[in-house]
């Protein structure tokens, strides 16, 4: 794949993504094409995004062609779990030296690929270009092609050097690599009438394992997981699914739209968070297949699971009722967590809309009601201001904001990539309730907010002390 400006623009302005339509539907929304601002930009680069999208393929080796920062500072740090192979957790890098920068790194890369195949025999190798190797012009495609031919192991180039853009774009570039080199290269051993792909679910904290049993019970087969706990081969066969289910993210929407064009596979967007969303997800899939028996099975599962949940959640609902939450997260989660929180009787007093589409925003408005605050910006200062203003009991946000909350002595729950607790599906709901309860009702808050006895004494005697000073 040649990484041209045209290709990048195409990825940034996916027609299926509502980010691209502002209210009048005339001009493009800026949020996707906007460049990072020097001095104030936060967050990862395209290489980071591509790794997030592809590293969850557990039986593949992931080789970073670049200097040490890209791999050395980041390997082994993502929360995607595996039910088997562990080769995806290893850090492979060409660790470019000054000499390589001057004379080129292609030979080194070829040798590195050969060594991985010999020693670790992975199902495939994903080779990531990075800023330095893109800049010096190493021909990744040629090296990968030569290695694939020689060793008969798929070696896939991923063109997502950090400087081309954000993490989000990197996700899509990762998807492009799958579309071009992986999807459609193998036939599944067998197919069923109810084959689906899950797209954009990375099995963070093992979240997927709380949901897969539900599909199995209903008789829906997940043909390919793209890419949480995936094996390389299942992604190869993804083109034979009947339906693509995009989970909680528009990050890989280019895959869904391309697969619709190429293989005529329709897609729907669903969420696994909250009772309502999980119910809707199962019902929508069943409705898509239009099979009476399937719909009945799904209704049975929903009835059974929600009944169980009502019992499990009862004590938490009691304790969390009326607690006020400020939510700061991206995109779909900004409303899907709102409904999950409301399931628990909590009040969401503010939520972010920074990465939300118009459709997301409309839903948020409906869910929050009149007094709800929609946060456009999410600087730490702004978050703290809103928390103070709304007298919120806790902040629910991504790990990056953890210390914003804790340093201000405010209860915090991590909702994004890096967390260790699975919140998806019905079982995840209980986990989330437990974590929210722990966060809000921990006995520590009184202690960390308490002034020292001498500070209290000083405050009480301030007038006296001032008098003395005079």
């Amino acid at each position, binding site marked *: 794949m040649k990484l041209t400006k045209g290709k990048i623009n195409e990825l940034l302005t996916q027609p299926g993504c509502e980010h691209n339509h502002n209210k009048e539907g005339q001009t493009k929304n800026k949020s996707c094409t906007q460049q990072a601002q020097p001095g104030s930009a936060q967050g990862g680069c395209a290489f980071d995004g591509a790794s997030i999208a592809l590293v969850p393929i557990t039986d593949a080796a992931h080789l970073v062609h670049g200097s*040490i920062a890209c791999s050395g500072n980041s390997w082994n740090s993502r929360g995607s779990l595996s039910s088997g192979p562990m080769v995806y957790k290893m850090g492979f890098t060409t660790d470019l030296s000054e000499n390589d920068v001057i004379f080129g790194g292609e030979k080194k890369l070829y040798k590195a690929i050969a060594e991985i195949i010999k020693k670790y025999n992975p199902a495939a190798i994903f080779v990531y270009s990075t800023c330095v190797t893109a*800049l010096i012009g190493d021909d990744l495609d040629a090296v990968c092609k030569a290695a694939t031919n020689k060793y008969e192991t798929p070696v896939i180039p991923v063109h997502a050097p*950090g400087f081309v853009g954000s993490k989000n774009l990197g996700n899509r570039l990762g998807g492009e690599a799958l579309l071009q080199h992986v999807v459609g290269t193998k036939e599944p051993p067998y197919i069923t009438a109810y084959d689906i792909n899950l797209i954009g679910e990375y099995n963070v904290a093992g979240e997927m394992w709380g949901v897969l049993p539900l599909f199995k019970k209903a008789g829906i087969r997940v043909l390919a997981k793209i890419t949480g706990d995936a094996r390389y081969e299942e992604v190869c066969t993804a083109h034979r699914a009947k339906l693509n289910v995009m989970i909680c993210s528009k990050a890989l929407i280019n895959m869904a739209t391309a697969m619709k064009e190429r293989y005529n596979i329709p897609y729907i967007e669903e969420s696994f968070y909250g009772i309502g969303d999980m119910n809707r997800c199962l019902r929508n899939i069943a409705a898509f297949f239009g099979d009476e028996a399937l719909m009945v099975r799904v209704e049975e599962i929903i009835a059974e699971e929600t009944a169980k949940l009502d019992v499990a959640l009862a004590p938490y609902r009691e304790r969390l009722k009326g607690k006020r939450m400020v939510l700061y997260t991206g995109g779909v989660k900004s409303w899907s967590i709102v409904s999950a929180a409301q399931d628990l009787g909590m009040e969401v007093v503010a939520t972010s809309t920074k990465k939300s589409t118009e459709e997301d925003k409309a839903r948020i408005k409906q869910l929050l009601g009149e007094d709800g605050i929609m946060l456009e910006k999410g600087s730490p200062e702004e978050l703290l201001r809103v928390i103070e203003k709304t007298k919120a009991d806790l902040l629910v946000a991504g790990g990056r904001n953890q210390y914003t909350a804790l340093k201000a002595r405010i209860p915090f729950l991590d909702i994004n990539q890096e967390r260790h607790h699975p919140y998806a599906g019905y079982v995840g709901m209980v986990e989330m309730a437990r974590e929210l309860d722990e966060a809000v009702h921990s006995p520590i808050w009184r202690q960390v907010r308490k002034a020292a006895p001498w500070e209290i004494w000083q405050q009480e005697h301030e007038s006296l002390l001032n008098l003395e000073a005079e």
Partner: protein
Amino acid sequence: MTTVLNPQKSLSVNPLKMSQPLGAALAFLGLKGMMPLFHGAQGCTAFAKVVLVRHFRESIPLSTTAMTEVSTILGGEDHVEQAILTIVDKYKPQVIGLLTTGLTETRGDDMGRILKIVREKHPELASLPIISVSTPDYKGSLQDGYTAAIESIVATDYGPFASDEPPTVSMKPQVTVLCSSHLSPGDVEELKSIVEAFGLTPVMIPDLSRSLDGHLEDNPHTVTTGGTTITQLKQLNRSCLTLAIGESMRKSAQILEGRFGTKYEVFPRLAGLDAVDAFLWRLSQILTSRCDHHFPLVPNIPANLQRQRRQLQDVILDTHFYFGGKKVSLALEPDLLYQTAWLLTEMGAKIQAAVTTTKSPILESLPIDNVTIGDLADLEDLAAGSDLIITNSHGTALSKRLQAPLYRMGYPIFDQLGLGQRCLVGYRGTMQFLFDVGNILMEEEAKHSPATLH
């Protein structure tokens, strides 16, 4: 003498090494009111930030010039300028640490020229120190980047005192203490209190003990709230001696000698009875050497340190049973490797394998025949049969595969608490190390003892 093996490999598997910019940022974070600025793509900063946040469990101020494809081709001047202006406007730092990355070094951005232009265009920034350092990712490791940043910090001229900023006056003699990357915030804190106990005023460079130690402030903040101050850096000429802790600090000490004529001494390590004895003995002579030699002062070692020394001797006695003859394999950066390997050897343990990240003269004096500049896969090959592995958190998987316990040292450590305050230097820190490791070795022995087998 130790042979340094530096195999030229095409593939690094499970890297031990972290990047120079990350090291430089860490050093910069030991200055007060600091905002480190990475000149590179935004990912360079994001990755470094994640590493430091997970290690210290602190919010870490770092920023980026957010280089793009276009600016990479056309040059990054505008991005540097815009980033500095935005940072000054938003965060109001007292000092900026500007560091390069692999991207901008490959491009060849001339930082001296860029900064000169920014300075000329913006006279309003005249009083803001900007410390610039070159740290390409494709050379060296965290320790090298950290060291380069310290060299820049001590080489920078911070100008005269501002009118509203009076120089601090102290009757006590001032010493400059250069702290290598192997010292944690807790180590720096201990070191500082030891130096103070001898009636001296230490200027710690950098002072991580005030910025990354983990403490609650009353108000939210966006730059470091503690660390070496610019005022302290302006009066480095007053120090009567430079104490360089860690071999990597030698060149920085020489820079100070060149600028101010300050004599220096290098202490390659500060753990273990001999090393701490020598350090304290030297400290005690700073005061005695200043008195009239007709009326010599008796060297005065603070009572609590004398007491700690006797405690340490007792701890050495108690713990040596578990160390004797044990085979230990280490993968650490050079200064930390040197300190740890010698301490273990002094306790009767054997160093089975040593892997490190980068070249250093100190590697030639390790208590082992060979040291490999390599990665954790090298350690795994060499460490089979060890009783203990010492490396960072990435060693968890290999320690399981080798069925040897892991003691975590170095960067990053993301699966353990208290890294902001852990102290492993001085008599007290040595005791802590012997307890930590001794307990691990004792537990291992218990696991394999006949009593548990039956």
